[in-house]
């Protein structure tokens, strides 16, 4: 990928990750401070939606930004985890946390199956294959009895946090979502700065060379794929508990396209980019939703502009200006 910040070309066994650079700690603290303060000024449900998509985009970015694999079917993990958690919470009466964990596990299992088939190919083939699998799951969700078809699963109970905190309260729900988002974000941060993450980048830059150095690229790619699927699932499971609804929208391929756009707009292969991209796009959607087809047109234009002239994305450009990776 030409557009990503490719300062790491280290291909050596047992790479020691450097200490976390100070400017990234500052950026992280600023982000957390903003997210802690925002719900007192902005409608919390809107913020929760943005946070769920931010986590989804970060998980997606793990694959495109650090392994160089463009999945065009990531909605399948978001949507199926949502269905699973909604079903568990509503029909089986699982406690909220257990329902979210169950949804995430379902996405992880799907990630193993789809990943094992898809990572045998790369580039455009990989994009095509993930897209086709996602469409297969979409049709399955349309017909399967437990998903409720066109109606989806409605009135999913939000329940409580470990039986203590009532998640019906918007702020309680918000801070729970924030905690889940930060957990996912830190897992991804830790992953890409670990020796494992360095090997992933090595595979992205030059797979044959990484293989010749003794790394089993297929295993690394599969693990990254499953991790990405799992965290997308975490986002989806949380999202459906927040909105108390699991629907077909989340498994449709347009959703897969949206997460690509969020990541591209924010900055492929940047740590904070997907978060920024998700917030920008969800805000746009919020204001343009009444205009129907216009939102699609605007999305398309952003895609075209990003690809033609703005390939680093918002955070990518920022980090170029301050000359430090963000």
């Amino acid at each position, binding site marked *: 990928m030409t557009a990503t910040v490719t300062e790491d070309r280290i291909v050596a066994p047992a790479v020691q990750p450097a200490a976390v650079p100070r400017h990234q700690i500052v950026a992280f603290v600023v982000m957390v401070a903003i997210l802690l303060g925002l719900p007192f000024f902005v409608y919390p449900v809107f913020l929760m939606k943005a946070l769920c998509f931010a986590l989804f985009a970060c998980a997606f970015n793990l694959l495109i930004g650090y392994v160089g694999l463009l999945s065009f079917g990531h909605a399948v993990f978001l949507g199926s985890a949502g269905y699973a958690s909604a079903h568990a919470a509503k029909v089986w009466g699982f406690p909220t946390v257990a329902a979210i964990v169950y949804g995430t596990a379902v996405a992880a299992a799907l990630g193993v199956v789809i990943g094992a088939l898809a990572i045998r190919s790369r580039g455009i083939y990989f994009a095509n294959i993930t897209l086709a699998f996602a469409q297969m799951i979409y*049709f399955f969700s349309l017909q399967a009895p437990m998903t409720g078809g066109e109606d989806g699963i409605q009135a999913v109970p939000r329940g409580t946090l470990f039986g203590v905190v009532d998640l019906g309260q918007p702020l309680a729900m918000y801070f729970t979502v924030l905690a889940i988002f930060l957990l996912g974000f830190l897992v991804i941060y830790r992953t890409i700065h670990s020796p494992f993450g360095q090997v992933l980048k090595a595979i992205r830059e030059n797979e044959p060379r990484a293989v010749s150095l003794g790394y089993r690229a297929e295993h690394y790619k599969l693990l990254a794929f499953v991790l990405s699927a799992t965290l997308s699932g975490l986002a989806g499971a949380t999202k459906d508990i927040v909105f108390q609804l699991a629907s077909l929208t989340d498994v449709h391929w347009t959703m897969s396209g949206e997460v690509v756009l969020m990541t591209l707009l924010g900055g492929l292969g940047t740590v904070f980019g997907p978060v920024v991209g998700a917030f920008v796009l969800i805000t746009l959607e919020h204001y343009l939703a009444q205009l129907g087809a216009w939102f699609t047109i605007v999305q398309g234009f952003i895609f075209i502009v990003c690809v033609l002239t703005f390939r680093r994305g918002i955070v990518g450009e920022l980090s170029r200006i301050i000359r430090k990776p963000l």
Partner: protein
Amino acid sequence: MTVFGVPTQALFGQLLIGLINGSFYAMLSLGLSIIFGLLNIINFSHGAQYMMGAFAAYFLLQLAGLGYWWSLLIAPLVVGLTGVVIERTMLKRLYHLDHLYGLLLTFGCALVIQGAFRHEFGSSGLPYSIPAQLSGGYNLGFMFLPTYRAWVVVFSLVVCLTTWFLIERTRLGAYLRAATENPVLVQAFGINVPRMITITYGIGVGLAALAGVLAAPIYQVNPLMGADLIIVVFAVVVIGGLGSIMGSIVTGFTLGVVEGFTKVFYPEASNTVIFVIMALVLLVRPTGLFGRAP
């Protein structure tokens, strides 16, 4: 009369529907394959361009009074020209980058085109009637065969085989295949490769539009008619092997028929059967049935 407990009437009916769908799969995946062969991009706006073909036919009739036969000629040219514009103004700038950017760009184009048509015409279909010469049908004894449907199958077969012949058996096709293998060397021999790329993209898009005109009388003219269809065609292309001309034609028709028969014997799986086949094929041959190594 029944076969495996299914009335032959229903069996042949679904076989025909399968052949019709297969005709569209074949024409669309053929266009995708030609574009992929030379440009190395997956043309994500192919479904939108198929839809534009159907709309072009509709406009030609409504605004210019030009009927179906003129549309078959003019619509692919007009839509192909819009493809040429997209290639000249945008795609051209991306060839030095990762090929995935081409996919993302055409995806953006598809969103804009589909959004614009949906904004103008809503999501309901506009009717387009079957031309007088092709209305009616034949009673074959075991089933009723509508003339227009037979025409679609025959016509698309002819288009596919002509395209195959042009690429595999003519001088122009030889240039094309050579440029697919090694564009730099072909350019060194004095052939204008950038222009060839532009024309190839235009022809691929034109094929999509031609399929759109054929589809207009069968399915209605609808802004979203290509949106979900194209995902199935992507699966067909993956099964056939990206970039293989004969592969797309054969798998296109075959999978249409397989899908039709699934509708008879196990209707629940009819939407997913192509994707299941894709998964199975990939397990055995990751590059598709007729594909070369990526």
